[in-house]
């Protein structure tokens, strides 16, 4: 610990300022750590403890089962299904969401003389929409009787699917909704990244006679890679935590076609008869997956990202 303090001394202005006021600092930190301690650090332990038990559906009886909940999960096809759904969901939302966001951000970065604010308003607006509201809005659009999607597809001569009640389409339907809601956020971040790129780089490329597409490919995207990397991390983690849309659109169905890990935790812990030990075990595995993916990304991809 002493070593760590020593090192941080060289990094903060505090040392330069020659400050030594120990006890006061703790006062400033106390409220934050009181909350984090009670509602983040302690629950990590408690969650693990619960995951080693069967928990009575009411009251607080516990039956210790060791790693029984975990072995049961690993042997259960339902659990592997939820893992698959989580991963498919990630594949279905992250690349599409980021690609769309970058394309739209490129268009928005074009220096239009008027109406720029208008397009931005239309395109950014999902950023303030909650998952619950997004779910309700799309539930109307997908509705087989009064919905709009299949009506529009009809106009194009396409016989639309039974979006929310067909196992092969329900996940797609949820993905579309989530991509839509995330789009505002992704475009804002991508646009900020694009506007951050040094204009002289374009100048240089232009002198070289590069076409617009080549400039995007060779200048914009490489220079944007830290932003893209950031978007990827955030989007992957958000996609693994998707809940509101699923709850409202499909309730995890049909069958368990849209039951991802988070949803399964929720159902086992809070719907009908609760099985909170099993739910805690799944929550723990989900957390490990999220932490693992965050680290893997920083280690694997982080190296190849082009920082300015």
């Amino acid at each position, binding site marked *: 610990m002493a070593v760590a303090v020593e090192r941080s001394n060289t990094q903060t202005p505090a040392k330069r300022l020659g400050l030594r006021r120990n006890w006061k600092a703790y006062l400033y930190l106390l*409220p934050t750590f*009181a*909350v984090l301690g*009670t509602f983040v650090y302690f629950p990590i332990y408690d969650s693990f403890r619960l995951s080693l038990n*069967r928990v*009575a*559906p*009411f*009251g*607080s*009886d516990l*039956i210790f089962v060791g790693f029984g909940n975990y072995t049961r999960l690993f042997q259960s096809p*339902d659990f592997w299904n939820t893992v698959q759904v989580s991963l498919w969901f990630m594949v279905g939302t992250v690349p599409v969401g980021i690609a769309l966001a970058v394309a739209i951000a490129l268009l928005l970065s074009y220096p239009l003389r008027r109406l720029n604010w208008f397009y931005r308003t239309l395109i950014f607006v999902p950023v303030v929409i909650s998952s619950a509201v997004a779910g309700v809005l799309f539930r109307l659009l997908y*509705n*087989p*009787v*009064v919905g709009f999607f299949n009506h529009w597809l009809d106009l194009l001569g396409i016989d639309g699917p*039974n979006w*929310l*009640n*067909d*196992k*092969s389409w329900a996940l797609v339907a949820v993905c579309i909704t989530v991509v839509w809601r995330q789009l505002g956020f992704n475009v804002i971040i991508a646009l900020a990244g694009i506007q951050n790129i040094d204009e002289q780089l374009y100048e240089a490329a232009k002198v070289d006679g590069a076409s617009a597409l080549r400039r995007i490919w060779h200048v914009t995207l490489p220079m944007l890679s830290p932003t893209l990397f950031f978007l990827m991390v955030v989007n992957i983690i958000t996609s693994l935590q998707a809940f509101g849309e699923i709850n409202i659109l*499909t*309730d995890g*169905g*049909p*069958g*368990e*076609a849209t039951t991802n890990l988070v949803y399964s935790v929720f*159902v086992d812990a*809070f*719907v*009908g*008869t609760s*099985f909170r030990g*099993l739910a805690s075990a799944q929550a723990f595995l989900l957390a490990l997956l999220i932490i693992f993916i965050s680290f893997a990304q920083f280690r694997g991809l982080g190296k190849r990202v082009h920082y300015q």
Partner: protein
Amino acid sequence: MKSRPIRLLALLAVFALVVAACGGDGATDTTAGAAATTAAPSGEPITIEFWHAMADDLGAVVDELVDRYNASQDAVVVNATFQGSYDDTYNALLASFDTGTAPNIVQNFDLAAQTMFDTGRLVPAHQLMAAGDADAFLAAPRDYYSDETGMVALAFNSSTPIVYYNAEMFEAAGLDAPADDWNFSDFMETCDALEASGVQFCVTFGTVGWYFEQILANSGGLYFNEDNGRTGRATEVEFNKGQGVEVFDFLSGLIADGHAPNLGNTWSDTDSVFFAGEAAMIFDSTAGARGFQDNADFEVKTAFIPHSDSSDRNGVVIGGAALWLIDSGDDAVNQAAWDFMKFMTEADQQVTWHTGTGYFPVLASLQDSPPSDLASFWDENPNFVTAIRQLATTDTQNADGSVNYAVLGGRAGPFPEIRRIIVEAYSAVLDEGKTAQEALDEAAEKANQALADYNAFFDG
């Protein structure tokens, strides 16, 4: 001027600190809620907390009845609180046992029966009833909420599923009203006639667990072992055997073969299809009789639910909810709560309740000799009568005089969970092409696991 934002910020900081601090020792001030459980000194009226799950118009009728009770005497004051849906009320009740804020009376739904026993916090109604009191009730609601000793809860709002149909479409297809006793073949013949006359869908229903439970009961099939969990704690489901497969094959087949649209696990999208004239029939609860009558552009009539070809008609399981008395630890308080429960099931209150909501009157006397206002209400609303007849003609006893456990309905701790598993079984047939038998076997395996998990916490 300049110092104002700072003062504000400092104030907010103090405020946040106080809130955070409260979080630390909140445990000290949480036991206050259970005011009702303390014994009242003589002269002071006893306050009874009553939790119910009746929203909007239904809730207004509850309030009317509570007011009527409070005005009728001054020893007891009932305080009614709306707690949200049945599930919400159920969860709130289970949570309240931990926090010491349990009510005295709670309205809880049919599926919760086993869990209500297992909480060990009930005062069974039969302990407070006078001998013979139970005979005043209709057999179906009485037996549903009874154990071997007698009634444990008072049936309050009871409903069953029923078939609503578009009378104009039936007429156009040259069909008469369906017989009370109709089996799957009769049903399919009706479907063929309807579809031949140009109706898009013969019927519509959500893939909820309830219709499977009910049509299984109507076909005399059991849901759980141990006589549907009535003579012992259910340890396995029975629905993947015999009648269950035939019933599930019928229901999932209606959707798979295009006789019904696949609208998923819904109670409301089906109504849109029915109102839009795309489907000629709809399965729904009797509690919706008024809603269907008022909202359709066409004449809505009602019929009994069908049963399997290989069985006789058995009847329906009572749905809805009952009033449960939670032990306060004080006899005087329990007696006061019981007094209110008795009041709610008296004839006057039952007539108000039935005509205001569509839920059944649960007293036998009202059906044998209805008072004039009830009789004229039934004349104007024949759809209410179908529902009552369907229940009244339910065979609660077999021909040999033994109890017909099929129509008593299943009783098991994790029943809400198992209902969810049935919803998944529909998808196994519709999306994965499994047979009804395969889908139910899979469902049975999951359900049995849920039963084992639950039962592990309770004896026997």
